[in-house]
């Protein structure tokens, strides 16, 4: 199985960002990546996503 592109591999961090703490360590990845909403092609979830996204943020009682 091809590992899905997690969707943010082209993310650019601004050059003004502080350098990473040199003491940091790397953990393993999960055995199967979870891809972003809509990765590979528009997803069934994505069809409704905008609707529920707006509900979530516009109407606090719908949280």
């Amino acid at each position: 199985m091809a590992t899905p592109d997690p969707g943010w591999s082209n993310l650019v961090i601004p050059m003004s960002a502080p350098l990473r703490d040199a003491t940091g360590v790397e953990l393993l990845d999960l055995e199967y990546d979870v891809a972003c909403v809509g990765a590979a092609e528009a997803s069934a979830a994505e069809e409704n996503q905008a609707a529920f996204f707006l509900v979530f943020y516009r109407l606090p009682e719908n949280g």
Partner: protein
Amino acid sequence: MDNTIHGETADAHLARFIEQVGQQFQADAIESFWRLQGAFRELLDSGAMRGLLNRELRTLLDNANHMGDWRPNQLMLHRGRGHALSIWLFEQPRRYIHSLPFHGMYAPLGGHSLHYDLYRLPPGYRNAQFDPTLRLEPAGSGITAPGGILLLRSDEYLYDFKIEQPQPVAKFTTAPYQTLEWLFERDGLRACQANDSELISTQLRVSAYVLGRLGNPASSEALRSLAGHDHHAVRWAALQNLARIDPAAAAEGLHTALNDPHPHVRRAAAGSLRRLETTSTGAL
């Protein structure tokens, strides 16, 4: 344009439908969604879908500044707590066969039937635990004729719609109740990918990634909090990025993750601890 239908406006029919949803549907009791078939039927039979769409098209025609509530290929008619109603245009077949993270009721509009192939979710399927060894099981084909309602039981089946011409569909759905949306290959029907079913999960994982790359110690608290999220991939992304900026806090999180409810997180935590114990940099 006159939107009057049987003495009532399309808005009045929609308002009655919304009222029935409010009375019968509980967003935290997903099975209550199926009680609403009668209300959806009543709305469809009223002609309100046609009236609402016509009015929207008329408004677009008359007012160049009108944006409406359009999404790609669909017009949103109503959003409520845990549910949404829209008119959707099926236009293109998909490359993959998708599981649905929500329950739904679809009704073809216009004169064409809705054709689909049906697949049963395989034994051993657990939505939140992606497994590429699982395959779909064909379960026949179906047709929903104009006037009919297709009930999409997403906890049992996948629906692969055959699209021979643009097909408008009235679509009444719950919000996503499953963590992931699985994609299956058409050749071999094998699971090939799992996507987040909610945008917020993707956003939180991206946020954790960014915080880890920025490396500001002040992010430690936020990442520790995120390590308790419901979504297993969000929890792990938080731990991975916490390890980049606060190894001591990550060590505590890794030991906690050995008892995580999700097996993939437990295995990643155990593997990471083993690896870190054998490396000079991993003084956890």
